[in-house]
């Protein structure tokens, strides 16, 4: 169990460690690591693997919006029914129930501004249970999932030192 958590900690930092590297670092055999990972994937503890990409660098235009959604909770299911309904749209990258002045924090990604705007206007806002939406378009990212976008730091060390 402890090894499992250690494995997850390592993968959460870098999903591209090879099975051999992971095995060495965890003091397990490569076979053990492979079967642990398979098991974690099967149990959906590991939901997926993604690269963190700065799309601007390859000239790919993307529009990201953070939408504050107020919702009327429903009897029996609370916020779940509406949240799950919104979550199924492929445009929705992240959706979380949060405390505070609004209920659902929704992150939507599209290729063009109109695409995102239209999603909000025609899909999200009119949905039953949705009381209001406030849309914030992303202007500039500074850090994406724990990685600095610019100003990358590297230890400036001498090649050899005592």
């Amino acid at each position: 169990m402890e090894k499992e958590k250690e494995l997850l900690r390592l993968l959460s930092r870098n999903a591209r460690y090879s099975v051999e590297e992971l095995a060495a670092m965890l003091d397990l055999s490569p076979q053990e690591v492979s079967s642990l990972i398979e098991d974690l994937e099967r149990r959906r503890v590991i939901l997926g693997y993604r690269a963190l990409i700065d799309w601007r660098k390859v000239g790919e235009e993307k529009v990201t919006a953070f939408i504050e959604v107020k919702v009327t909770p429903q009897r029996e299911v609370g916020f779940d029914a509406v949240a799950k309904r919104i979550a199924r749209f492929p445009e929705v990258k992240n959706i979380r129930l949060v405390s505070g002045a609004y209920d659902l924090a929704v992150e939507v990604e599209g290729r063009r501004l109109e695409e995102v705007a239209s999603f909000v206007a025609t899909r999200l806002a009119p949905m039953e249970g949705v009381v209001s939406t406030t849309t914030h378009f992303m202007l500039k990212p500074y850090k994406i999932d724990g990685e600095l976008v610019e100003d990358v730091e590297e230890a400036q060390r001498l090649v050899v030192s005592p």
Partner: protein
Amino acid sequence: MKSWEEYLNPQVASLPPSGIRRFFDLAAEMTGVISLGVGEPDFVTPWRIREACIYALERGYTMYTSNRGMKELRVAIARYLEDAFKLRYDPEKEILVTVGVSEALDLALRALLKPGDEVLIPDPAYVSYVPCTVLAGGVPVLLPTRMEEGFKITAEQVEKAATPRTKVLLLAYPNNPTGAVLNRRELGEIAEVVKARDLLVISDEIYAQLTYEGEHVSIASLPGMRERTVVLQGFSKAFAMTGWRLGYAAGNETFIGAMTKIHQYTMLCAPITAQMAALEALKNGLEDMRQMVAQYAYRRRLVVNAFKEMGLPCPEPKGAFYAFPYVGGTGLSEEEFCEKLLLEEKVAVVPGTAFGPSGRGHIRCSFAASVKDLTEAFRRMKEFLRRHGVKGRPSVVVLGK
């Protein structure tokens, strides 16, 4: 005018240059080198620490501090030493903040040694101990250690080496370059000899936090040893703050007072910016430190495993961030091994003899490097060994617990 050599203090003139220098010059000229030859963390100082320093500068912290270091920092150091290592020191009289452990080491030796006093020094060990002893007028007496005994000095060795002129035992554990640590029992046995022979201990514990199995034990925490020991600690390794140059010494009031005298005339005080940063490190940086240590722990296993696969005998490092494998099985000397490895495969490591004669046949590989670099470096080393071959010798040396 005479030649400059004749003006120099002969003692300084005859000091051998660091054995690392040649490799540095060689490696610095090459591109694409993966260096496992670095004696410092590959992490940048945690941001909260840097940010605290910037904020201090903005508020005008640009002046001298008291000779001993800022009171608030000394109080924080005292609290930390107690929490982490069960060591209790009075921040008013028993702690001195220095420009790295390097300065603290120099002060301790100069405050103690009369010409001809002998200092027992483990071999191999950090490169400064012998020259600093010589410059302070002392006589270094090496305690050779061997891979088969896990590069640990023993009480018996100290007993045998001690003469009426012996004044100081210099302890350097966790050890650079071998990664060896001494456990409570081994330290206890050494402590008994130290007391029986009326010796003092300078204990360089700069790698204390980088102890991977069990907890670091300071010899100063053993019965009757607090008064005989000066503990040297610092921020360089655990908090990734090498360039800040900040360390400290903790020990007997009179001794710390003597060190402070030299310090006030030669250094005045440690830089205030570094002291402000160190204060933040102790207040809020412990979690950052633990995370870095966890990374070293993973890499340590990677390194141990790699040498096992390569068939190079290598004691498992229990502390610091160095592995010290034996490469004599290749038929190459450690110097030749390092030079060829650098020129043929562009991997920089340090010959063991840079750290003393007992490092013969060994190389020091730092695992303060990214997993990516370590993996690539080991791939190249395997290739190197495939070409040069390893003969005989058992592939793993299992050390006593």
